[in-house]
């Protein structure tokens, strides 16, 4: 289809997302906050409703007809998620979100590796708080030291500096990083990071929360030992996240949360635990959410993740072009499309050099129907590193159209000019 618009995907999918037809006052809704959470197609919402209204029962332990249907639907969701990322069903641990998955990784690895005061854990300064705080808490519990990769001015991990500093060394037990930054959009060299971690004998944990929704994922090729991501950013429901792990590692990890479903034999004196993934899924799992996430994986697979990624590239390239043309606008992070995901964070200043605060900017944009995020986007250390208190972020997904980018650009100019007049 050589004469297809580069943005055909958005036109094809928008009818599945009724929320995108909403209006904000006289303006059409322009939802550019997908990095925060994605919108959901009818197919996903319908699958959840059907599960509740037609097949609802508890799983595993209920063996009657509805129980069998619910178990099949739930485990079917697990199998779909597994094949979506090129893993095996028994490697998929369902959590409540990516944050729980990362905390599970921190607790279980800390205990498995018997982390102590002589050990080091390495993260990066560009992480989401959910990939910083669990490791801080782990280091506090165990006495280990937390270290981190810095970033270059252009928003790439500073591998050279890290090498010079001996950041990864024989004391390093765990290395973790985001696949795609939720602020800068930077796509990190995951395979290289994994190799460097493994070279010093460390476990590599990948925060793929912004990667899996945008990029075709073959989890085995990434080289990571554990991979966390979240349902609500990939057209799936809230209330579900995933920790994928190499089975031979998962098998060695101790449980984290205790309770029903994760046990083998419970005595009052002691208990033994089920093999993975059940070992890490205490209590009633997110049943309808797993069904919904399976439907989300089906939805994306049917479109083709190659097409989703191509759309993300095309729309991000267009947005970079439009935003770079705005006087006073400064993009944080990579300004070219190479190794870049669909999130653009920026600051905007009036001609007299005064910044329009992201919170004010966001409010003006919102009044024109444009939904972006203003603040530190759960990445305060990264903002501090760039010397800004906060930024405005526009983030795109498969349904984002060039018209929406135009409305963003026009609204930014309007807002800058309003605050310029205020100064005059």
């Amino acid at each position, binding site marked *: 289809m050589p004469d297809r618009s580069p943005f055909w995907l958005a036109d094809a999918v928008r009818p599945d997302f009724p929320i995108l037809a909403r209006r904000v006052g006289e303006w059409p809704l322009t939802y550019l906050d997908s990095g925060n959470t994605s919108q959901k197609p009818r197919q996903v919402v319908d699958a959840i409703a059907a599960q509740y209204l037609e097949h609802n029962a508890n799983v*595993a*332990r209920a*063996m009657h007809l509805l*129980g*069998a249907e619910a*178990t*099949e639907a739930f485990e079917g969701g697990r199998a779909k998620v597994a094949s979506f990322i090129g893993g095996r069903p028994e490697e998929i641990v369902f959590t409540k979100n990516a944050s729980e998955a990362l905390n599970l990784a921190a607790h279980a690895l800390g205990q498995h590796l018997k982390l102590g005061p002589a050990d080091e854990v390495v993260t990066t300064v560009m992480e989401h708080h959910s990939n910083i705080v669990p490791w801080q808490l782990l280091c506090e519990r165990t006495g280990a030291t937390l270290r981190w990769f810095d970033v270059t001015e252009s928003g790439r991990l500073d591998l050279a500096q890290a090498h010079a500093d001996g950041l990864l060394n024989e004391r390093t037990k765990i290395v973790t990083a985001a696949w795609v930054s939720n602020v800068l959009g930077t796509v990190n060299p995951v395979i290289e990071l994994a190799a460097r971690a493994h070279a010093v004998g460390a476990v590599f944990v990948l925060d793929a929360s912004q990667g899996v929704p945008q990029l075709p994922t073959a989890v085995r090729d990434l080289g990571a030992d554990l991979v966390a991501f979240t349902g609500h950013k990939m057209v799936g429901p809230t209330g579900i996240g995933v920790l994928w792990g190499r089975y031979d590692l998962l098998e060695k990890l101790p449980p984290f949360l205790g309770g029903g479903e994760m*046990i*083998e*034999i419970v005595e009052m004196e002691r208990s033994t635990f*089920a093999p993975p993934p*059940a070992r890490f899924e205490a209590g009633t799992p997110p049943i309808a959410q797993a069904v919904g996430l399976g439907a989300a994986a089906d939805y994306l697979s049917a479109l083709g993740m190659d097409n989703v990624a191509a759309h993300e590239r095309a729309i991000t390239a267009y947005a970079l072009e439009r935003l770079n043309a705005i006087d006073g606008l400064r993009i944080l992070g990579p300004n070219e499309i190479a190794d870049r995901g669909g999130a653009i964070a920026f600051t905007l200043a009036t001609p007299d050099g005064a910044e329009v605060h992201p919170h004010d900017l966001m409010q003006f944009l919102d009044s024109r129907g444009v939904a972006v995020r203003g603040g530190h986007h759960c990445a305060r250390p990264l903002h501090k590193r760039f010397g800004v208190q906060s930024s405005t972020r526009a983030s795109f997904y498969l349904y984002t159209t060039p018209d929406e980018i135009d409305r963003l650009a026009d609204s930014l100019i309007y807002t800058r000019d309003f605050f310029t007049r205020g100064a005059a």
Partner: protein
Amino acid sequence: MSVEAMYQEIILDHYKAKHHAGLRDPYEAEVTHVNPSCGDEIMLRVHLDGDTVADVSYDAVGCSISQASTSVMSDLVIGKTVDEGMALAASFSEMMHSRGEIEPDEDVLEDAVAFVGVAKFPARVKCALLGWSAWKDAVAHALAAKES
């Protein structure tokens, strides 16, 4: 197929009077297997004499399907070689995962063909396999012990 038909006479007979039940000496390996979803548990011992399965003894609690299947299994494998027993385990497992669509070979599986109906009830397949998995695991342990 009806549930009444699934509970064949053979199954109920083995359930009422389990063959080879109880734990006996001598043995080279003892394992415990559990079906955590329903709580069925089995402790099983294997005694090998060279390549031959000289005895299988067990103490088990569970439903009629898991109990009868273990009883039938012990009838089938005792006196056979380890390889023959493993081949039987494979045939049985294949039948149980066929959703009832395989016509089992009665000359090979003998009383175990009665479980073909159980294969139509996915939730019960685990029950029918519990004793067999324990046996395979115990044999593996016994062989490993012999090696070292």
